[in-house]
């Protein structure tokens, strides 16, 4: 076995020093608002992380924002380090976009009372004046699409592919199943949490397992569902999407998607910051505040009756006539 002596390692360090040049100075000062996002998956994942990046980019059209994104940060401690680093570098708003980051944020936010933090999805600000929380009432869109799915299913059997039974995923799945049962109490709604946010192959097989027991409408949530969508597409089984518009993944089978418009609440957070309020509030995007939108795929030939059921459900939830999980 070869040995690298201490000298070698030191020399390597020295070489690295040779590359050391002081990083460029502080960003030019101005009215520019500096916002940082720390998120667990890729910023173009067509799911959870993309939704928040799209949200900021929408707000960016309205006011000057300097946006920095640290994506793919599934290691919780790395995320904590990134959040702390952004705060230290003087970012005005640091968004911790992952419910698993909350424990870390709770400790970090105390050290930076002049920095605004936002944490989602969650409904807990830890009682700190500089932390806002945000969540999506994804059960609402789930409920609407569940109703449509039950109405669309010819065999009376639908399937759900989930990651782990937590947070946003659980809310959506519970809403979807409740909606399906509300539309057709006899519906068979099988739910399969595959135990992973990343195993695309397993998600594909989970979708096939649903189809094998007769499901003719499928849905799923989190970034690994791209596999499930592919499997559904190969059998021509209808798909309902969530978190982002997944139509381009399978234009033939995607019926509708629940799309997150975080800009709705981001505007409120930024407006508060303009007035010197750094947090302490809880926000949620809902169908009623247009933070959640059901986007139909125009290419999918959905029976009018089903479209009507969906649109009516949206109205009923907006007006408070239907409360999905109550």
């Amino acid at each position, binding site marked *: 076995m070869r040995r690298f002596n201490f000298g070698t390692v030191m020399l390597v360090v020295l070489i690295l020093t040779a590359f050391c040049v002081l990083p460029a100075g502080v960003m030019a000062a101005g009215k520019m608002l500096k916002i940082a996002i720390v998120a667990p998956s890729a910023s173009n994942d067509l799911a959870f992380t993309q939704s928040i990046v799209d949200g900021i980019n929408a707000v960016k059209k309205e006011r000057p924002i300097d946006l920095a994104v640290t994506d793919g940060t599934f290691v919780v401690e790395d995320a904590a380090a990134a959040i702390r680093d952004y705060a230290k570098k003087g970012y005005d708003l640091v968004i911790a976009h992952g419910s698993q980051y909350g424990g870390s944020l709770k400790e970090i936010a105390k050290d930076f009372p002049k920095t605004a933090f936002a944490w989602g999805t969650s409904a807990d600000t830890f009682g700190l004046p500089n932390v806002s929380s945000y969540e999506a009432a994804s059960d609402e869109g789930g409920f609407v699409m569940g109703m449509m799915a039950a109405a669309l299913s010819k065999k009376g059997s639908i399937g759900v592919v989930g990651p782990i039974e937590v947070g946003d995923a659980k809310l959506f799945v519970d809403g979807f199943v409740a909606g399906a049962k509300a539309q057709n109490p006899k519906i068979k709604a099988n739910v*399969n949490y595959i135990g992973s946010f*990343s195993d695309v192959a*397993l998600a*594909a097989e989970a979708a096939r*397992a649903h189809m094998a*027991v007769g499901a003719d409408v499928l849905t799923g949530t989190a970034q690994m569902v791209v596999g499930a969508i*592919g499997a559904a597409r190969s059998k021509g089984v209808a798909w309902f999407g969530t978190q982002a518009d997944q139509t381009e993944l399978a234009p033939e089978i995607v019926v509708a998607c629940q799309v997150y418009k975080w800009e709705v609440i981001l505007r409120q957070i930024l407006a508060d910051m303009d007035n010197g309020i750094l947090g302490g509030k809880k926000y949620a995007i809902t169908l009623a505040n247009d933070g959640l939108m059901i986007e139909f795929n125009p290419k999918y030939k959905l029976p009018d009756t089903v479209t009507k059921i969906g649109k009516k459900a949206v109205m009923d939830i907006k007006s408070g006539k239907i409360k999905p999980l109550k």
Partner: protein
Amino acid sequence: MSDLINTTIIIATVASGIRLATPFLLASLGESIGQRSGVLNLGVDGVMLLGAFAAYYTVLKTGNLFLGIMIGLILGALIGLFYAFITVNLQAQQGVSGIGIYLFGLGMSDLLFQKLVGTPRPIMPFRILHIPLLSDIPIIGEMFFDHSLIVYVAFLLVPLLSLIINRTTYGMNIRAIGENPEAADSLGVSVGGIRYSALIIGNMLAGLAGAALAIELGIFQHNLTNAMGFIAIALVYFGAWRPLGVMAGSLVFGVVAAIVLQCKTLGLIPRSASDLAAMAPAIITILALVVVANRFRQPTALTKPYVRGG
């Protein structure tokens, strides 16, 4: 009626297990050839990821599945060539250089994907290939002969490789240099040459495994393989370096995973226990090996660089 549903479900589950087993099978067959010649490659997962991205990107740009598979194979061959150079000529420590290859593949495939593709875009996956007569056999036909071409290729490779390793001079040479390179060398077998070829073939199969995975799923994503390559290495040990054994290992792993998945779908496993159920493939693979009481030992020269006169 309920009888009928049960048969359908059993068929679907076995078929699903076969599909899940396929990438493992291809990758472990490849790894076993390299190991048979005395070279350990811990970088399988990295090769799979690069093969997967290369095939995905090719199909995305050209729409040609065959070309995608070819690019996956060629990429595997190139990595095999490089790996052979560093392990045979430069006699690099095999365990750690393999991990280097893994890290390179993991990072590079992700980087290329983010820069060249960005948002996941679908590609057309393999079509199901019905085999006349065989596909029509009730039950058996649906279980075993209702797959895409790549699945048949993977399983046909098992007897083929078995034949090559056990019955041909080339196979004999591979085994000889994996057991006793000095003796083989003295008989005029080119140890370096055979190791080069074994590593190139082995890594081609790893590249193919990745390509098959990406095309079967019709998508690429960061870390698409989810550490499949490491499980494939484990299955080589399960299969005692024999193609048939490797196939058995891949099938046990794949079919158990499929059964667990199907049980969860049917609600037979309570959701609170679903994590525990997901342990099953791993535990059963270990137990199977305990019960079978593995009496095979690994190739003697495994991980040892060969130096003439050493």
